[in-house]
């Protein structure tokens, strides 16, 4: 079980996240939606430990992560795939995947590579290529494949479908769903109707730093309905 209680985050004097509380069950897929700039990415960064000015309690599988460094949180099972700049540009595709698995056993490192290549075979074809020379979409695939292959207890993914072709969005949606079926909890920020319908059991709506509603994917019968909610036009 992953739990966030009364999370606050600040950028300078700006109070961006204003007391968020949310839960993600074991093997559950949960979405976080809202307009640009309402604090979704800041919420994920705060949970990952990347922001210095935060308050609140973050608990993962009974361990309180608040106050821990980002790398300690990662070693406790917290995975995070940011929206941008998620790869090491002057390292090969294979090295990019290996970095995260170096804290695991050799057998797990090998399994991690296999899982990532199985998810996106194009990464296997380009395993020796520098990550910085991949297209934007391929870099996104690389970061996602690495995040998924590491099999954390909770994986946070920021805008995984952005910039990807529909066929790859479907692959990601299925991969996230499969991860939840294998017991990984997933917290995803995304506006893709297909991805949300496939990978999420529940969705929180966020506006101006606070959560304003909770939905089930079945509440949306069309992409337009989801977009309207995402844009804050149907907040509960």
């Amino acid at each position: 079980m992953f739990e966030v209680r009364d999370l606050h985050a600040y950028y300078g004097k700006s109070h961006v996240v204003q007391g968020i509380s949310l839960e993600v069950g074991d093997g559950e897929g949960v979405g976080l939606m809202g307009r640009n700039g309402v604090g979704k990415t800041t919420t994920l960064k705060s949970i990952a430990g990347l922001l210095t000015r935060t308050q609140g309690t973050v608990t993962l599988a009974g361990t309180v992560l608040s106050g821990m460094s980002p790398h300690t949180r990662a070693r406790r099972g917290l995975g995070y795939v940011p929206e941008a700049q998620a790869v090491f540009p002057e390292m090969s595709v294979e090295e990019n995947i290996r970095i995260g698995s170096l804290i695991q056993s050799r057998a797990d490192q090998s399994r991690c590579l296999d899982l990532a290549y199985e998810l996106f075979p194009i990464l296997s074809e380009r395993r020796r290529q520098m990550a910085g020379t991949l297209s934007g979409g391929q870099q996104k695939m690389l970061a996602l494949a690495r995040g998924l292959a590491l099999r954390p207890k909770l994986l946070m993914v920021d805008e995984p479908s952005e910039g990807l072709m529909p066929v790859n969005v479907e692959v990601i949606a299925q991969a996230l769903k499969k991860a939840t079926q294998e017991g990984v909890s997933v917290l995803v920020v995304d506006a893709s109707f297909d991805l949300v319908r496939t990978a999420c059991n529940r969705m929180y709506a966020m506006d101006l730093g606070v959560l304003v509603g909770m939905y089930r994917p079945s509440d949306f019968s069309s992409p337009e309905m989801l977009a309207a909610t995402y844009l804050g036009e149907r907040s509960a």
Partner: protein
Amino acid sequence: MNQFLLQLLNGLVVGSSLALVASGLALLFGVLDIINFAQGEFFMLGAYILWIILGATHNYVLGLIAAGLVLAIGGGLLLLVITWPLLGKAQVLILLATLGVSLILQQLALNIFGGDAKIMEPPIAEGVDIGPITYPLYDLIIIAVGMGLLLAGFFWLRYAKYGVWVRAVAQNRSMAAVLGVPVPRVYLLAFMISSGLAGIAGGMLAPVTSVFPSIGGSIILNSLIVVVAGGLGNFRGAAWIAILFGEIQSVGSIWIPPVVVQLLLFGLVILLLVLRSRRKTALVRL
């Protein structure tokens, strides 16, 4: 021909030692985005440590290992006590802090050891015939050890777990952290390796040159030139440019006065910077 071969080898001696200091500086800049102005004084202290140990035990290898180890620990302490509290603040504060440390170390060396140059005999006096010249075996060992350490550093960065992590932190610090890379430990390791390399370089060169409190001044100046020319944060680039620097300085002095060679090198660096500033891509890292 004899003169050319002699200066070519001399250039390698200077270049490989300079490469150890400069690649350490480049490593530090790559990982922490800072320049350690005390690196020249770490070189100087490495030379004094060798002088002390050699005087006490007559064991050169022990002296060189001690120079590397003591300076590595000293570098770690410099990071923890002085640099760490300033990380994330204005970079000029770290520059000033390390500059302050370098002045303090220089003054301390002057007070403790005096201003006179300490001269040591190389541990090996034999020469080796290379074609028409006889070259000191010790100088060849300096080249071999310097090159060996640089090669070891290159492979360590490429294949060892912490080496890969050092490169990861240099390229994308926050992403490395969220993947479980212990960033503070990588900082400490980079600082210790950088300082240790300077200590070893100082110890190696001590019997060839001589040791005095301000010996680090020219080393840090040349190292900065090399690091800037090699691409800030580029370990391999700094090593290559340092060797090239040593060769140009050494071989060039056959035909041109050394001061003019130095000026030409400055000009070359300015030209490199101008060319680099026109490139749109970022500088190559580690």
